[in-house]
């Protein structure tokens, strides 16, 4: 199964959740948000959100500068 994460292709060998994938990329940290296929995924669903073939994942950081 192939996904895109921040515009890079990734091959996943087994079914995984968003939280597990982010942890494997050392990206599970505070002050970030994640969208799959342009839909922001609520934080409380990261543990149960499955990744599917062709998903495009975008991670972005909270910014406060004004």
């Amino acid at each position, binding site marked *: 199964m192939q996904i895109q994460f921040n515009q890079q292709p990734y091959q996943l060998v087994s079914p995984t959740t968003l939280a597990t994938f982010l942890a494997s990329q050392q990206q599970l940290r505070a002050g970030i948000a994640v969208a799959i296929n342009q839909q922001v995924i*609520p*934080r*409380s669903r990261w543990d149960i959100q499955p990744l599917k073939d062709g998903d495009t994942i975008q991670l972005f950081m*909270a910014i*406060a500068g004004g």
Partner: protein
Amino acid sequence: MLDLTPAQQLRYSAQLLLPEVTEAQQRQLLKAKVLIVGLGGLGTVVASYLAGAGVGHLLLADDDRVSVSNLPRQLLYSSAEVGQLKVDCAKARLQAQNPDIVITSLARRLSLPDLLALLPEVNLVLDCTDNTSSRLAINQACYLRQVPLISGAASGWQGQLLALKPWQGQGCYQCLYPDWQDSPSCLNSGILGPMVGAIACQQALMALKLLLQIGDMPFGRLHCFDGLHGQSSQLQLQQDPACPVCTLNSGLAASNQ
């Protein structure tokens, strides 16, 4: 409602030439009251366009003073004003730009109780702040008082823009960044003036469209802009069932029915 005066017809003639903008809508703009929180790189540009367009009453809130390192991007201030309160300098400059409007300056960092007291008389809030706690307080107050919020942010090469009417169930700022405590500001990430200006211009455009009630308003859609690579994306926000602010507000809404 009073007609526009000949002086107003002349001042606003360029925007009145747009087929979407009638004199009645310009009068609506002149009756509007908008709170701009934060008068840095975003707020100064937003305030200038809103004052110029004839938004009738601007409330400007910031507790900060002008520093020389603000001047490359905070275009309302001059070198001679370093050390003075930003709200005072901004008010003088904007009042000179457009004597036709009312400007109120609030030289303090607005707390949640301050915001809750101000919002019932405000049509729109523009979040132009540089810190997390203000952003979360503004989100909560706008939610509770059901005042539309247009939030802008810029840091480094990243810019974000989000218009919200969170009581309509589209999610709120707290849903987007639930564990947000502190984030890079312009002070520690660096910024180029036009980067913050690009977000501010879109924020001002969105504000005027909302007040004029024209065009499409992307409530609940986060616009992300990468200024280094010239890329932008739009992401649809969703309400988080675990969001404490949404839970609080839906509980209050239910108890008011």
